[in-house]
Each structure stands twice: as structure tokens, then as C-alpha cells.
């Protein structure tokens, strides 16, 4: 029995099996259905964009870690850069030039993640920051959506997203362009990973089952979008499609299940998460129904990311015995 190999540490001495790496790998796995849907509807170019996004995110991560003198390997295998790359790809049209994808990766990892101190310290979701950056940097390329392969089109043909049609031509045209079923399986124009509600739902439920995410944010987010768009639909059904159509279209599913639930940038308490989800839904509705952009999911999540510290400050778990102490204090 040699003393040197004995483990000396403060309690607790046993740990749960879950690890950051495990969480990240589960998230990666949960994105596979959406990726498959993307390839099915947008062809191999979708896969190519994804590969480029993941590879460049890993490359940027490695470069920055090396520059900062941090251990490169441990940070690379934790999978967070892969997730950022995957989520970034999910938020891009499949016909985007590769160099733009690379610029997005630099912004996501370099600006949104490491400029704030790396994993766990970034206030905003890196993939979303990159997406919004690219939306402003490459407005043309980021808003011309390829037609799905099911509709017998070639790479060059582009079409407006259902939400874009809604904004320009009203509810009837939008609902004609994309039926509920089209939206559900993903046979509509849009970012390569956001169109298939079915695939995203599968991934989201998988995350829920593995307890990587909790139900609060997705349910509050989607519920609020449904409620908000239901009001608009009741007021003017010629201008606004029904809530189910609204929930299935655009980035709501991707945002609610995968982007808003990002642990680093969302509140830590259950109540805070509810509030966060509702906030995302409200901002999304406001942008979709009243704003200039056809879709507001990215912006809404970023706005709420910014409010997360505030939510965490004011929405705290109920402290054990706090009310008892207060009652005593009141008596005294």
C-alpha cells in the first residue's frame, strides 16, 4: 500500500456517470435525423456544407486553443465545437459557398465563443451569432433558398421560404405553397436542417428522454408561438396562417429543441427556463407578425440569451427554509 497512489480529494468521493462529453455526444446523436432529412431534401450539397462547417469549427477551435496555450486535445474531444459546427450548418442554406461557411465558423468559434473565454463562458449561442452575422454579411446568399429535390429542381433554382411568402403575399399563398404535411416532413425551402419538423422532433424527444434537456424551454417556446400566432390568425386569417402551420414552419422546431436549450446560454432554473422559452416565443411572434424579417427565431433566442443573466439573477430556486426564516423574522 503505497501512499502516493492514493487519491486524496474533498467530498463527495463518488460521481454520477454523466459528463460534459457524454452530454455533447448525445446532442450530436440527436442531430443526426435532422441532418439525414437535410440530405434527403437538399441533396449531397447539404452534407458537404455540414462537413465543411464541422471541420472548420474544429480547425478554428484547435488554432485558438493553441494560440491561447490551452490543452488542445481535451477541448477538441469534448464535442462542443462539433455541435457548434453542426448547428451552424443546420442554420444555413445548402447552396451556400463553402468559404462563407468557413467565415461563419470563424465567427462562431472565434468571436462568439473564445472571445468570451471559451466553453461555458459565452453569453450568446455561438452558432446563432454566426448565423446572424452571416445573415448581415451575406444577405443575398443567406436568403436564397434552394428548392427541395423532391420538387424536381436543380441546384440553381431558388424559392422563397413559406414564411417569406406569408410576409409578401399573405396566408393563402403561403399555405398553398406549403401544406402542413410538407412542413412536417420538411419538403419546403429553408435552411438545410430546419425544415423537417419530424426529424427535429425525433431528435428533441431523444434529448428529452436522455435528460439532456428538460421540457420547459421547448414547450414554453412552441406554446407561446402557437398562442401568439393563434391570436393573429383569429384577428386576420387572410394575412396569417393557422398556428399549427406557423409552429411547423421556419426555425421554430430547430430553435426550440436545439438552439434555445443550449445549456450555456439559457437559465439554470426550471422557472427561469419557462420564462426564457416564453420570451423566445414572444419575440419570435413579434418579428414574424409585425417585423420586417419573415423569421425571428434566431433573433429571439439571441435576445433572450442576453437576458439570461438577468433571469438567473431574479428567478432563483426557492431556498429551503427561507419562508420559515422570514416568518420568524417577522415575528421578532
Amino acid at each position, binding site marked *: 500500500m503505497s501512499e502516493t497512489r492514493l487519491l486524496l480529494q474533498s467530498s463527495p468521493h463518488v460521481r454520477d456517470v454523466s459528463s460534459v462529453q457524454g452530454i455533447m455526444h448525445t446532442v450530436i446523436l440527436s442531430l443526426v435525423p435532422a441532418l439525414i432529412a437535410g440530405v434527403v431534401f437538399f441533396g449531397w450539397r447539404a452534407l458537404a456544407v455540414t462537413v465543411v462547417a464541422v471541420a472548420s469549427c474544429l480547425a478554428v477551435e484547435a488554432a485558438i486553443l493553441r494560440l491561447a496555450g490551452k490543452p488542445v486535445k481535451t477541448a477538441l474531444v469534448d464535442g462542443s465545437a462539433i455541435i457548434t459546427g453542426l448547428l451552424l450548418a443546420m442554420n444555413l442554406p445548402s447552396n451556400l459557398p463553402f468559404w462563407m461557411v468557413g467565415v461563419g465558423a470563424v465567427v462562431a468559434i472565434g468571436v462568439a465563443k473564445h472571445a468570451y473565454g471559451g466553453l461555458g463562458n459565452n453569453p450568446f449561442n455561438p452558432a446563432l451569432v454566426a448565423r446572424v452575422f452571416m445573415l448581415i454579411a*451575406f*444577405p*443575398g446568399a443567406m*436568403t*436564397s433558398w434552394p428548392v427541395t429535390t423532391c420538387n424536381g429542381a436543380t441546384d440553381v433554382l*431558388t424559392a*422563397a421560404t413559406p414564411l*417569406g411568402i406569408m410576409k*409578401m403575399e399573405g396566408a393563402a399563398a403561403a399555405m398553398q405553397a406549403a401544406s402542413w404535411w410538407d412542413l412536417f416532413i420538411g419538403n419546403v425551402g429553408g435552411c438545410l436542417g430546419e425544415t423537417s419538423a419530424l426529424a427535429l422532433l425525433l431528435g428533441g424527444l431523444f434529448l428529452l428522454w436522455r435528460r439532456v434537456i428538460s421540457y420547459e424551454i421547448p414547450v414554453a417556446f412552441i406554446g407561446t408561438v402557437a398562442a401568439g400566432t393563434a391570436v393573429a390568425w383569429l384577428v386576420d386569417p387572410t394575412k396569417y396562417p393557422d398556428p399549427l402551420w406557423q409552429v411547423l414552419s421556419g426555425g421554430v422546431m430547430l430553435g426550440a429543441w436545439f438552439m434555445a436549450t443550449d445549456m450555456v446560454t439559457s437559465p439554470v432554473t426550471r422557472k427561469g427556463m419557462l420564462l426564457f422559452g416564453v420570451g423566445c416565443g414572444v419575440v419570435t411572434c413579434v418579428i414574424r407578425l409585425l417585423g*420586417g424579417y419573415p423569421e425571428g427565431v434566431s433573433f429571439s433566442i439571441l435576445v433572450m440569451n442576453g437576458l439570461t443573466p438577468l433571469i438567473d439573477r431574479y428567478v432563483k430556486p426557492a431556498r429551503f427554509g427561507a419562508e420559515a426564516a422570514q416568518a420568524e423574522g417577522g415575528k421578532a
Partner: protein
Amino acid sequence: MSGFAGDAKAISVVVVIGAVCAAGLAFVKGQTEGAIKAARLQETAAAVERVVPAGCKVRLDEERAGATECPDYRKKAPATAGGKPGCFDVYPAYFEDGRLCAVAVRNSNTEGYGGRIEVLAGFAGLENEETLVLTRIYVLSHSETPGLGSLIATAQDKPPEEWGIDRKKVFGLNFRNRVLKDFSFTVKKGTEATEGEVMAITAATISSRAVTKAVGESSRWVKENLGAIREKLAAAPGPSADGGAQ
């Protein structure tokens, strides 16, 4: 030092400094006034010259570069924004021999994505409605989204010969040398637009519509007031001392 004497000194110093500064400014203003006016006229003239056919000479004097008073024929039907309230700004251009060659009409539309868009449109073939031609447009000012709506002004500072023929790339081509009687001013999406229609910029239909509306309004006005325009602007002003583009 205190009280009244101090106050008096402080006030007088400020007054003296103010006076000296004012005098200096007055002097500089006097020195630059003419040049500023010329520069402004030059600016307008340069824009007008862009939209009228080559060979037309722009002769602007102060009256024609934006009249102080709005003559009857320049009245707008709906008093929307642009120029003087309820007026179209019209800038004539003349042939060498002094006959009216073309007019440029300035109009604006506030329904752009980023608000107001100001467009100058050139019209030639002023003999009758049949021959009326929209020669070119020039976007004077806009605040559309860069990279999207801002494409309404693509390449407009280059000579039209360099524009190519792709209406998708250069929005101005939609309004280049169009015979008005065959042109409809309806905005259509990329693949659907015919020759007589305007092809919307991808992902910037709102901006495209705003420009088209402004130009359409100018065209209608020119069509309706052709006689009055010919009559009022028939005579070329004498070679102007300040700012005729030569």
C-alpha cells in the same frame, strides 16, 4: 474680483469672443457661398446628365434646379413626398440647337424597406405619347439594407454600356430605354417577369416595388403633362453662368 465687476468682465469676454467668431464665420461664409451653390448645382446636373440620352446638354439654372414656386403643370395629383410639397421636380436637357431633348423627373417613394427612396428618371421622345421613352433611372438616395435592397442602385455610377444585359444583376436595366406605351410597371418575381415588366431583386421585392412605384408615378405624370412640359421648357435658357454642365 467679485460681484458686478466680475460678472461684467466675464460677460464682456464671452461677447467679444462670440463677436470675433461670428465675424470670422461671416467672412468664410461669404468666401464659400458661391462655391457651395455651384457644387450643389453641379451635383444635380451630373445626376441629370446620367439619365438623359447622350448628346443632350443639361442646362440648369437656379430656377430649374428646384423652383421656389410650383407652376400648375408640375402639381402632383396626390401630394405625396418628393421635392417641394406636391410638386414634381423637372430638369430639362436640350439638343445643341436648343430644342428640348429630354427631361429628368425627380420623385420619391416612402414604401422602401428602409424608408424613403429618391429616384431620378429620364424621359426622351417627348414629341407625343407614342414615342415617349423612359431612358434610365438613377437612385439619388435610399437607406435600403446593404447587399439586399441596396442592389436597386447597382452599377448606376458606371456608364450603361458596362451594365451587361442581365436584369437580375443590374436592376437599372429594367428601366433602360423602355417605350412607355409597352411598359407596365408591374413587379414580378425573377423567372416570371416578361420584357414589359420589372424583375424584382431576389429577396428585395419591397425595395424593387418602391422604386418601380416612384418611376411609374413620374412616367404617368410626364405622359399626362406632355404638352405643358414641352411648352414651358421649350426654350433653352441662355448659357448659364453658374453650373450648366458642359
